[in-house]
């Protein structure tokens, strides 16, 4: 049997919701042994977030939590007790990596700052993922996913104010967030990459370090051209702006939408062929990718006329058979049932003691030597207390019983 890429890596997690937990999930799914620490009362907020299996709100039935915590062990521990903090530090000695996403002030208050913990384990890699980072004037500000997305500057990319006639009535200038928690996810991804860099460095040198990820900065990094529009040519983002070549556009079909990016001339040629080589396509105002963008309003109407008579799936198949980068605007049902994703066995079935077998998104990559694999579902609250406190740390059954009553674990 093939092993996993991160077999042997030990990770401790003390985090809520998306950013910290997803970072640790990425490591866990590649083989790292992850112990997730939750406060017995103030447990991971994700447990209280919908969607809930069968629409029954219950902290073991949140789809978000179930997804974000696969392959982890879970324990409950109250860090505000002396005993709890002591146990936490024992776990820090065990760990290679500690991931957390708590407010920096709280981390200091609890006595689990990088300074505190590197004294306990000098080789520790501590990955802190917060809205604004560990330094700077907003360090202690509050920020949810939406706030990070907007301070990162992404909202103005998503206003959909492209110079379209078709969608003129629906145009709104509001800086939009994407559906879901994308600032948190981007932060988690950056955290996982940085953690791996730190881990490779430590394998080489034995030296640990503190990784500081700001969700705002993670968001700001995802836009290839946003700030350069200002620093290169003093052009503001927001409002009608798109790449000056094309067409790059959304078009209504009989039964939905398609979206295309015609970046290269040969792609345009193929599109024209697909539409039956209409005369208008040979006009001066559409002669190359740059003028097509300039004359997009004229072009859009002509395209819409052809596309509006066809179904999105039909156009998709035909366009792709010709090598045209055109896709349907899928809803989630279409994505889950996609023949392509199913052929790749992208979605996986995971069995869980409380909700049974459910379909989850899998990994977006396949590793030939060290396959990604789910070995266990997300932990129930405190599911692995016995295994961690008893087997790993050697506390007696009696101690565990007493610690539970004393609200330590």
């Amino acid at each position, binding site marked *: 049997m093939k092993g996993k890429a991160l077999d042997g890596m030990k990770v401790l997690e003390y985090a809520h919701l998306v950013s910290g937990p997803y970072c640790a999930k990425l490591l866990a799914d590649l083989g790292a042994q992850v112990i997730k620490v939750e406060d017995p009362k103030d447990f991971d907020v994700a447990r209280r977030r919908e969607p809930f299996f069968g*629409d029954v709100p219950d902290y073991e039935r949140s789809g978000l939590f179930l997804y974000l915590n696969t392959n982890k062990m879970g324990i409950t521990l109250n860090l505000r007790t002396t005993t709890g903090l002591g146990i936490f530090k024992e776990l820090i000695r065990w760990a290679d990596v500690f991931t957390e996403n708590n407010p920096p002030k709280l981390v200091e208050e609890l006595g689990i700052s990088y300074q505190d913990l590197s004294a306990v384990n000098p080789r520790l890699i501590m990955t802190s993922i917060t809205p604004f980072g560990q330094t700077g*004037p907003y360090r202690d500000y509050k920020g949810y996913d939406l706030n990070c997305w907007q301070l990162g500057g992404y909202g103005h990319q998503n206003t959909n104010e492209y110079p379209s006639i078709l969608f003129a009535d629906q145009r709104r200038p*509001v800086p939009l967030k994407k559906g879901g928690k994308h600032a948190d996810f981007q932060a988690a991804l950056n955290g996982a990459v940085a953690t791996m860099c730190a*881990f*490779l460095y430590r394998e080489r040198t034995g030296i640990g370090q503190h990784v500081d990820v700001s969700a705002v900065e993670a968001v700001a990094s995802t836009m290839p051209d946003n700030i350069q529009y200002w620093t*290169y*040519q003093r052009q503001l983002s927001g409002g009608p702006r798109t790449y000056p070549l094309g067409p790059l556009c959304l078009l209504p079909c009989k039964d939905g939408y398609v979206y295309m990016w015609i970046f290269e001339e040969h792609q345009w040629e193929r599109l024209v062929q697909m539409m039956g080589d209409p005369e208008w396509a040979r006009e001066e105002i559409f002669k190359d990718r740059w003028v097509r963008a300039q004359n997009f309003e004229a072009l859009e109407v002509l395209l819409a006329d052809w596309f509006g008579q066809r179904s999105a799936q039909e156009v998709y198949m035909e366009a792709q058979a010709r090598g045209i980068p055109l896709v349907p605007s899928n809803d989630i049902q*279409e994505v*889950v049932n996609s023949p392509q*994703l199913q052929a790749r066995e992208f979605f996986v079935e995971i069995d869980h003691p409380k909700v049974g077998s459910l379909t989850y998104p899998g990994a977006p990559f396949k590793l030939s030597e060290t396959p990604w694999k789910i070995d266990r579902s997300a932990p129930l609250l405190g599911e692995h207390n016995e295994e961690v406190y008893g087997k790993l740390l050697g506390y007696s059954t009696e101690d565990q019983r007493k610690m539970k009553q004393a609200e330590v674990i």
Partner: protein
Amino acid sequence: MEEFALEGIRVVDFGWYWASPYLGMLLADMGAEVIKVESLQRLDTVRILPPYPDGQPGGLNRGGIYNMYNRNKLAITLNLAKPQGIELAKRLIAVCDVFTENYSPRVMKNFGLTYDQVRQVRPDIIYASLSAYGATGPEKDYVCYGGPQTYQSGLASVTGFPDGPPVGGEPYGDPTAGLFAAFAVLAALHHRSKTGKGQYIDLSQWETLVVLMPEAVMEYTMNRRIRPRMGNRDDIMAPHGCYRCQGERSWVSIAVGSEEEWQGLCEALGNPAWAREDRFSDAFRRWKNQDELDKLIEEWTLKHTDYEAMQILQGAGVAATPCVNNQQLVEEPHLNQRGFFVEDDHPEAGKRTIIGVPWKMSQTPGGVYRHAPLFGEHNEYVFGELLGLSSKEIATLAEEQVIY
């Protein structure tokens, strides 16, 4: 001397546009030597995409996207349409640890540079393919970019307003794929250091976006329900949105997630009478009545600039930030104090601010230490020093449009 986390790792990138270049950027920021293979025969369009210095296009070295995503890298020109080009590519791969590309699978097949072919010359290579659809499945040879991927993936279907079209189209899939690929490559490097074995990473850009929307996917797989577009709203938090401020295109984002924060908001707004009304008296009622609530909040935000609103609200313990445009982003005081931006000095673009390393590391911070390469700038170093060709050989190959 400052140490780099990825010192000694050499990467060859055959990709273009954004996905694999973003992967290369992350690795190069951390100290890997990343060699970008380009050719006039197959020009990376990003070299001629705007923004341009002072709005003036011209030549192959002035594209603002290219110059940010390719900082710290080396660039060579090599024509893979020529058999000699492929031979040289293989000699280069033989001295690299990581191979990356982001085409549909048939492209590398046509060049004779598939994983199986490449491992003949470098058995422990880590080969990362960042294709749109993945290397297998009925749609593997379909073509797509990061922009359309926001629609294909279903992400646009949950982005936008309930009464408007699905919203997307920016190349969000590219940096996302680059990040996932970087993670997988680093894990593979770790595995190689333990076992000596390389491997093949088959990434699907489509899938990289689906894994970021578990709420929508799980809602469907658990409850067979399709999530609607909700604008800036949340499942339970309210208020949760962007509100107009004083000035043109000026907005502040506000999110309230607890009773304590609600009280803070009321206080910041000067405890207006409406805030004590029954319709807003608990989290559920605020969520139910958020249309009305949003209007009342906006009456207040309109009297303030975006930054003022943030200061007042944060002072009361409420999560609020301006919705910044690109100028505000570059001038953002907090980000500047953290040193997030760097001044890039590029021979053809001049001094321009670009985004620095996306994260901070206490021991191996990495950085931006070299401007993006001019077209073919490092031909001499790579073909001469690394591969041992003489200047005469290089000149001949250039004449024959192999180094081209």
